[in-house]
């Protein structure tokens, strides 16, 4: 049993449970994956597997160090790689082992890790949910920051003050998503709820700890 699998977000839809309940779901193309490297406590100081998503990437798209690294595991056509820590009870995976979506079962619970959609330089209303001011009736305070602290004392802005800046395009983990359906034929995994990132972005599906 692998601790997780890599995949791509396909998109969202909805399905019906047998009792008629509507479930919002995200469809992921998960795997096939190959164990590219095995990290062990003796050589690396920790226990982990490096998985690679087999996508049939052309050899000329990969640089030489990358090709050499993949060759050690007898794999190729891999662009997206991620490491997953091994816990007690996980199988001892060897380089070259394949990880398929068939390892997962419906009703299992997973965490999905992806990169959120980039929002660029976002203001306070969008980034920190500030309320903003009235738009009319002579108001001259719309979406501006307002006060960021007192004056001569402390004569500085406290660290961590919420301000405008870059938002999104960062790693986001969504925990405890239920697996609704697994299709080993198409390598697809259906999880309940939303997953970070735009359609087509890479995601890592990890079995929930505990």
């Amino acid at each position: 049993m692998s601790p997780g699998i890599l995949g791509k977000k396909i998109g969202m839809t909805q399905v019906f449970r047998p009792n008629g309940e509507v479930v919002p779901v995200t469809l992921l193309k998960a795997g096939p994956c190959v164990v590219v490297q095995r990290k062990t406590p003796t050589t690396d100081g920790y226990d982990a597997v490096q998985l690679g998503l087999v996508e049939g990437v052309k050899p000329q798209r990969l640089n030489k160090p990358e090709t050499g690294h993949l060759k050690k595991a007898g794999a190729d056509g891999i662009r997206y790689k991620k490491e997953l820590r091994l816990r007690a009870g996980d199988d001892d995976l060897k380089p070259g082992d394949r990880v398929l979506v068939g390892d997962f079962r419906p009703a299992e619970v997973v965490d999905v890790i992806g990169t959120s959609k980039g929002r660029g330089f976002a203001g306070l209303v969008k980034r920190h949910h500030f309320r903003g001011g009235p738009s009319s009736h002579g108001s001259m305070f719309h979406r501006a920051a307002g006060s960021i602290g007192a004056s001569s004392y402390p004569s500085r802005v406290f660290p961590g003050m919420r301000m405008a800046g870059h938002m999104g395009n960062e790693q986001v983990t969504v925990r405890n998503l239920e697996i609704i359906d697994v299709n080993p034929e198409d390598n697809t995994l259906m999880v309940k709820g939303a997953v970070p990132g735009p359609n087509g972005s890479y995601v890592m599906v990890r079995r929930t700890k505990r």
Partner: protein
Amino acid sequence: MSHPLLAKATEKLLRKDFPAYRIGDTIRVQVKIREGEKERLQAFEGTIIAENRSGVSKTITVRKMSFGTGVERIFPIHAPVVDKIEIIRTGQVRRAKLYYLRGLRGKAARLRERE
């Protein structure tokens, strides 16, 4: 429904046991209702005034006049709660959304039967 795999994943949920209804038709929708232990059917009879979304999420809006008040109900037609759809009467219309019926009542809100 952009990605082919998305359509494929929900394909088995699509219901094919419905008659070929069209916008403007008067239909009767039987909906399963759970009352504690027991399950019974409730009918809703009215004109289809709109069809929204596609694939497994497809819904139809059915409008009827109930004691002089317009009542509209939106049915997700692929949902298991919808038991049966029967066509009572066809209707000849020239648009896909019949929202103009909301402003009409009585004789003006009638639709011509389709040949």
